[in-house]
């Protein structure tokens, strides 16, 4: 579900209101807090840091499920911010370990939310292939996997790659 204007946003200690400003062909939504409670400072800081990089965030749409993911999966927010620049081994390995751990712990709903919100045009080449391969074996438990694959093939085609070769075997 996409959050609407003035909808309640869950925080660790209660809830605060936020509002949205639609940008970028309606795909991305900017957001900010109103009436922040003193106990919501942690979220305020993190969301403000996202605001400055909204146009580079690899998020398709901001939803309540994604908000929940951000509260439960500590590295997810950072991943969406970094996704367009993750190309080297040193950058990739920490996130690969986290995704593997997510699957080992059978957090399939979280993995589904994670994959389902990815904005493929902002993923690096290796992530377009790697995220699908890394989660391939659990695709039956991750409904958004197939959609991500279709979007990844379209994006690889735009980038002049042969998706059937890069994704061979999956």
């Amino acid at each position, binding site marked *: 579900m996409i959050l609407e204007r003035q909808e309640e946003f869950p925080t660790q200690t209660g809830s605060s209101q936020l509002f949205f400003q639609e940008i970028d062909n309606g795909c991305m939504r900017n957001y900010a807090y109103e009436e922040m409670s003193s106990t919501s400072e942690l979220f305020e800081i993190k969301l403000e840091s996202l605001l400055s990089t909204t146009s580079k965030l690899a998020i398709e749409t901001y939803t309540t499920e994604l908000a929940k993911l951000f509260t439960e999966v500590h590295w997810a927010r950072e991943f969406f911010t970094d996704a367009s620049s993750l190309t080297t081994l040193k950058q990739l390995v920490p996130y690969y370990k986290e995704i593997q751990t997510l699957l*080992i712990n059978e957090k399939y709903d979280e993995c589904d939310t994670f994959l389902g919100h990815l904005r493929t045009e902002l993923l690096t080449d290796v992530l377009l292939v790697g995220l699908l391969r890394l989660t391939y074996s659990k695709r039956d438990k991750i409904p958004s996997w197939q959609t991500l694959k279709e979007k990844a093939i379209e994006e690889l085609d735009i980038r002049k790659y042969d998706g059937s070769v890069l994704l061979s075997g999956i």
Partner: protein
Amino acid sequence: MYCKKAKDFSEADILGIAIRLDHSAGNHLAIAVHDGEFCYVIHLADHYRLLNGKLTDQYKWVEISSMDEINKMHLAAVCQATYELNKDEGIPFAPCGGGKFDENGAYIGEVGTGMTCSLFVKELFEQQGYIFINNENWPIRKCDILWQKDVLRDFYAISEEDRLLVKHQEGLIGKALRYRPEEVAASVTFQSVPNNFDDINPISLKINQELSS
């Protein structure tokens, strides 16, 4: 030439198969990785000794011919992440195998099972969908049975778990397929994969010659 010198493994190569002569136990196989700054090998060195060490001159390396840069980078990241997930608990060494990685990179194996250095590489690659060897018609050779027996005879079993491993592995002798290090190395040299024993074996013999020369 299939084998290249360790010093020629560059940042652009990203991922390769490292192999070295080990006169006491045949060849030894590892995964060569270049992280942009350093090159190193990830390998099952011994019983419960999963290591990440330097790519020394003792090693030569073989290029994975069928793999593009994007998939090499992905698989290199998987290898490093899988190493880090399993390094503390380690992986049992077992000449007749039986252990596997689950789809998420965690080692899984019943008591009595394990891996060889070659199986570590083969299983890790296959777990991500990269299949280089067609198992059908893979032979069980007398010299492989002898090797498996020798390894188990010399196995220093210090725990009850180790003794169970030896007992279970002895029951697999003559049934378990053995993939020699040079055969797994040879399997990645093809542009089109997977391949069967008849295709892989001649190249593995050449790799052996190159290692000895």
